[in-house]
């Protein structure tokens, strides 16, 4: 496997005048469980569509498992499993029939994985898809993706509609079956708690751009929120600052490392540092995508 499972460079997708993805730079390490986070309309699903050949980029390039998305679509699809956003399948087919249909595409298909998933996730295999609940539909998608034994799983909100019990079962299954095997999971979600539960990397996108890409461990250990009051405070997002915003007379900084040194620097510039606090993933996310007055001088 190449060093990175997914690499995008300046990826752009426009729909008319709207840029759904706007110069996305992303690096998903091989073997990682990568949480792809963003608000509604941030460009997550469009990015996934481009990676899988469902949409064509207007500019930029991307490689999946070392393969070019523009030239090697079928080879990528052979090696990647996908769980779609809407979880729609063929109404008249049962889950067992979906297995019969889907397995024919994949030489490495695992019937053992099908049995294990069906048992753990309590999937009614003989019920027609149209009669399944939203949660069961999501489970069937997950089963089909896991049984492919793919090198990379691309999951677009895979747990949407699942109850907490099954949600945990799905996440555990992913962690054991895929991540435990050294395979890569690329995981788009709104649920920050579940991202924190299984991911080791996160990428936060907004308005089609990557705002932050980091190890979750680094965020927990080193990322800090620094709040300072004062005039003429630094405005840019130069390292180690990854986000800066002003709220009244207070400036808020998300600092990736050396927060105390940064606070000391602000103090030396005449600012009054009121808080240096550790950040949860949720807080980092909110600070990054917050639509507030930018920290202008």
């Amino acid at each position: 496997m190449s060093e990175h499972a997914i690499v995008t460079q300046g990826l752009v997708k426009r729909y008319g005048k709207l840029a759904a993805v706007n110069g996305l730079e992303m690096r998903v390490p091989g073997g990682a469980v990568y949480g792809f986070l963003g608000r509604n309309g941030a460009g997550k699903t469009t990015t996934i569509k481009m990676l899988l050949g469902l949409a064509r980029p207007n500019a930029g390039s991307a490689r999946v498992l070392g393969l070019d998305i523009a030239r090697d679509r079928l080879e990528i699809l052979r090696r990647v499993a996908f769980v779609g956003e809407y979880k729609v399948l063929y109404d008249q087919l049962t889950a067992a029939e979906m297995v019969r249909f889907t397995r024919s595409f994949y030489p490495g298909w695992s019937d053992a994985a099908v049995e294990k998933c069906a048992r753990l996730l309590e999937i009614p295999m003989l019920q027609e898809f149209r009669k399944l609940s939203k949660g069961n539909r999501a489970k069937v998608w997950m089963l089909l993706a896991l049984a492919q034994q793919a090198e990379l799983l691309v999951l677009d909100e895979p747990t949407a509609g699942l109850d907490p019990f099954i949600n945990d079962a799905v996440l555990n299954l992913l962690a054991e079956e895929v991540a435990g095997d050294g395979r890569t999971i690329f995981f788009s979600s709104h649920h920050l708690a579940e991202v924190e539960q299984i991911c080791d990397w996160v990428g936060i996108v907004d308005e089609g751009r990557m705002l932050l890409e980091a190890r979750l461990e680094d965020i927990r250990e080193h990322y800090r929120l620094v709040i300072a009051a004062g005039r003429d405070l630094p405005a840019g997002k130069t390292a180690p600052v990854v986000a800066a915003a002003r709220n009244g007379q207070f400036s808020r900084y998300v600092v990736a490392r050396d927060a105390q040194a940064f606070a000391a620097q602000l103090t030396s510039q005449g600012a009054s540092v009121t808080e240096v606090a550790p950040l949860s993933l949720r807080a980092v996310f909110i600070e990054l995508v917050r639509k507030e007055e930018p920290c202008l001088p």
Partner: protein
Amino acid sequence: MPALSVANGYLWKCWRDTRSTFLIILSAVLVVGAFGVYVAFDPFGWIAAKPVDLQVQWQIAPQALLGTMLLSLPFAGMVLGALGVGTEFERGTADFLLTRPRSRRHLLWTSWALGAAQMALLVLVSNLFRLAPVGPGRFGEGSLRNFLRPPTVHRSVTLSHRYPVGSFEDFLGPVLVLCTMALVFYSLTYLMTTLARSGRNGTGLALGVMIAYGSVFATLRNWYDIRIPFFPVDLIQLAFPAFDSASMAIVAGWLAVCVALTLVAQLSFERAEI
């Protein structure tokens, strides 16, 4: 072998998509055909026992039923064409299907070929009823084809005396012509369903195209005496009275149109984004 199993899996899925529609149409063909044969045979003498004027009406019934059935089969092509791969978008299953490791060209042509085969089978089964033997007395010795005369063919054309029973011209010629006509309807609807990403809208568009093209054809012919190819007329005129090498060329031409329509559908499908 892996390629074969992939084809089988997808073919099976296409069959499941179209199965109920196909079986309903086939059942209708069998019921109507069986009724026509029953009336022609009159095995229990029920029709023979009726007054003479009613017997005449019963004689007309098989012709009306079987002839109409044969000529309405192309419209079954529209029904099957509206179940093509374009409906994957309407149903929301396109993102699943198009993320399978198979070329879109393969997906489209496999689905098209299955529908075309179903169409051909329907035409073939319908035409088998024309071969049902009829004993002497009521319609004259021979087969049901003796009295099958599509209403659009000029009355002066007799169908029964040109070719011997069982000859190519007698059976396969009309089958080929009807198949071609059904395939044109099918391929046009298939294309429109792919373009519109919806079976219902695709059927509407296909009907619109045929009505518009038919109007142009009629206008040019009646007002300017210019003839452009128009498949229902071209093909129906070939179907029963004569089938020779010139007819074969026309059939081949319309089959090429079917392939061209499907190629356009392929180009559209290959470029489709979700």
